[in-house]
């Protein structure tokens, strides 16, 4: 393992992935961070925390029929490359952090995403709720399931990975 030099230090930039407490309406999503990388940069993503503060309904009443994607919890933070528009939960994401209930959820720090592929990397937080598809819904379909959530994280950008 080499020593750290002044040049290396100035070539490493920690970029924020941050969203203050925000109300996210049912089925809506927000781009939290966007980073463009070109050759010879390297992006390393380790740390992200997703906190769900509050819900407009009792989360105990939420069923799988309320979820747009059954495996993505109540809300999720996803990392996508060259995202332009459309539902952020679709297949093709590089990483996802889900919030299955009210509370604080963080990525395991040993689950590292490293990318040197040029492109625009976007972190998107989404509300995974929709009107219930159950035959007898516990939450009336006219009720909007909204969440108050916050995101805190960081990604390391090495400007010269060679």
């Amino acid at each position, binding site marked *: 393992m080499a020593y750290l030099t002044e040049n290396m230090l100035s070539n490493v930039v920690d970029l924020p*992935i941050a969203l203050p407490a925000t109300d996210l309406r049912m089925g809506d999503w927000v781009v939290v961070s966007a*980073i463009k990388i070109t050759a010879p940069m390297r992006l390393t993503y380790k740390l992200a925390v997703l906190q769900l503060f509050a819900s407009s309904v009792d989360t105990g009443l939420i069923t799988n029929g309320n979820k747009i994607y059954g495996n993505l919890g109540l809300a999720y933070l996803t990392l996508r490359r060259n995202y332009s528009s459309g539902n952020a939960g679709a297949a093709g994401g590089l990483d996802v952090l889900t919030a299955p209930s009210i509370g604080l959820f963080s990525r395991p720090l040993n689950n590292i995403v490293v990318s040197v592929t040029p492109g625009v990397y976007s972190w998107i937080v989404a509300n995974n709720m929709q009107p219930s598809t159950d035959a007898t819904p516990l939450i009336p379909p006219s009720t909007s399931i909204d969440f108050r959530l916050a995101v805190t994280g960081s990604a390391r950008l090495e400007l010269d990975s060679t």
Partner: protein
Amino acid sequence: MNGFVTINRYARALSVPLSFAQTELRSGKSIIIAKLPLALHQRFELRSLTIAVISILTPGVIPIYLNTAMGLASAGLYRSLMVTGPLAFAAFTDQNCVTNPFSPCVVETPGIYRVIVSNNTSNADLSVVVTGSLKLYY
């Protein structure tokens, strides 16, 4: 300047976040994302500032630019509040735009510095994201 970095030196280099999650920016308006006072013997470098326009919120509009060089929207580092006088800036031209990281903006002059995102049209509301970082040495 390519010596080894000591623990003390490393502790005095900070990455200051510049974070502006997706937000509606009305036509002709600007928002201060960050404000940083710089004292004597301190130095910072701006090496990464990315702006992305997620969508144009005004339907069917043909944008009228207030300043064509600044694109639809821009994010920049300013010493004054004059939006047309940035020390470094990223102007939205395509889907996404970033400052040149290999031509860093290095600042040592004491003063108060701001990072401002602005909508450079007179008739189009935009949805904008800005992400970046300042490297502060003190």
